């Protein structure tokens, strides 16, 4: 069988083997794959990077455990970046069974950076009716959240003394798999002019690009890909990066086989024409 016919008619099992290797190897040999960072992710990274010590960022962890695989890496990398610059965080969890999961992430990372609740961050927790909660926080965080997730009144927190509503936060970053982002857009960004960025699941991302173009969102992260770009920017290569690295290699393998198949096909067609 001529060489080119082999290319065209490779046994499937070579394809399977290559895919298997492409997915297995990265588990054992860590190596880097360049990640192209899109401007909408860089905008969020640069903004958080520009925050000085003591400035306040509002991080909304509005997703349930079922969207954790795609969104937890984003919440984690943004929180670590903010804490590493001693930026203070106000954190909400406006989705029904998300508060416990968010609390675990906060305690894990606050322990890592030695950050204290009430001084370096304030975890507000969950209240039903996200629309009303987001709107009321525009007046005063204390209206929907007189006390934080742990039951400590906001007024007794040194950090919250100077923080009344969105005017006292530099920006809101909403990490969500639900329509909470629509409430942030209407009830916070439109009504109180607070700077807003979003990190949504891959499936939702396509619907929110128009808000990026219109300027209502100053940044947008889409699913695991957005998280991996952010991890590369913040050089905290974690879960998202390792996941995407395998995806990249697997896609390269698939494309390689398409190319090989077509090369064989071209040669065989030119041969047949002779």
């Amino acid at each position, binding site marked *: 069988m001529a060489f080119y016919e082999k290319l065209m008619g490779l046994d499937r*099992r070579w394809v399977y083997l290559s*895919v298997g290797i492409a*997915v*297995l190897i990265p588990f054992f040999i860590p190596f880097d794959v360049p990640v192209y960072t899109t401007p909408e992710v860089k905008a969020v990274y640069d903004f958080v990077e520009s925050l000085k010590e003591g400035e306040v960022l509002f991080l909304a962890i509005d997703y349930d455990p079922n969207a954790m695989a795609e969104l937890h890496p984003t919440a984690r990398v943004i929180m670590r970046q903010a804490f590493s610059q001693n930026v203070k965080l106000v954190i909400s969890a406006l989705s029904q069974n998300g508060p416990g999961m968010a609390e675990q992430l906060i305690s894990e990372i606050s322990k890592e950076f030695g950050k204290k609740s009430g001084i370096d961050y304030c975890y507000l927790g969950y209240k039903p009716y996200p629309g009303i909660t987001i709107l009321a926080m525009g007046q005063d965080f204390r209206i929907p959240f007189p006390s934080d997730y742990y039951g400590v009144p906001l007024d007794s927190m040194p950090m919250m003394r100077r923080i009344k509503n969105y005017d006292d936060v530099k920006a809101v970053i909403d990490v969500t798999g639900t329509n909470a982002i629509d409430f942030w857009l209407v009830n916070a960004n439109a009504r109180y002019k607070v700077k807003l960025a979003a990190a949504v699941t891959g499936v939702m991302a396509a619907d929110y690009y128009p808000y990026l173009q219109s300027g209502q969102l100053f940044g947008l992260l889409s699913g695991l890909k957005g998280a991996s770009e952010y991890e590369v920017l913040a050089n905290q290569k974690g879960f998202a990066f390792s996941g995407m690295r*395998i995806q990249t290699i*697997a*896609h390269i393998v*698939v494309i390689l086989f398409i190319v090989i198949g077509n090369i064989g096909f071209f040669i065989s067609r030119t041969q047949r024409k002779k």
Partner: protein
Amino acid sequence: MPPLGDLIWTTLAAFLTFCIFSFLYKDNPFYKFAEHLVVGVSAGYFTMLLYFEGFIPKVFVPIFKEGKLYYFIPAILGVLMWTRFSKKWAWISRYPIAIYIGIGTGVAIPLEMQTKVVQQLRASMTAISFNGSAGLNNLLVVLGVFCALVYFFFSKEHKGLFGGVAKFGIWILMIGFGTGFGLTVMGRVSLLIDRVKFLAETWWPMFKAFVGAVL
């Protein structure tokens, strides 16, 4: 030393994972074992699910607990299906089947007409213009839907202008299929990543610890 119970069950799960993966090489006794095992287990699982979450709440409770005797009627129809056990009386099962199909088709006519035809048509009615990207995109979408629908015409030969428009329609469809294919690769690869993660990060450390402890 991992708890023995967990180790055995996790190792069984890993073994079955390898059995299914072995099918990639070729059909072999390990795959046949896993296949027949899952056929039996899944049939049993579904049956008990139907019993506890189908029969009890929908037949037993309404009739015996809530006294809704009119729930006897569907139950009798269900029993009539059992006439298929005998060759002679199998024709009686035609009645429950007829009712079963009748309900399904009746519900489908208005529902599918609304969700698949009217609402998709309404969604395509957007302002079109020749300048400005939004307007232009809407125009291209409307033309794309138009040409693709022309391709689906059955009773008109695809010749001449009609044929040309239909050809453009199948091109649009092919772009849609290529997009569908390209988008799904990432999802399928992540399924494989999860399985390899289970083997490499859940099972293997546990297994290695056990082997280490034993040796």
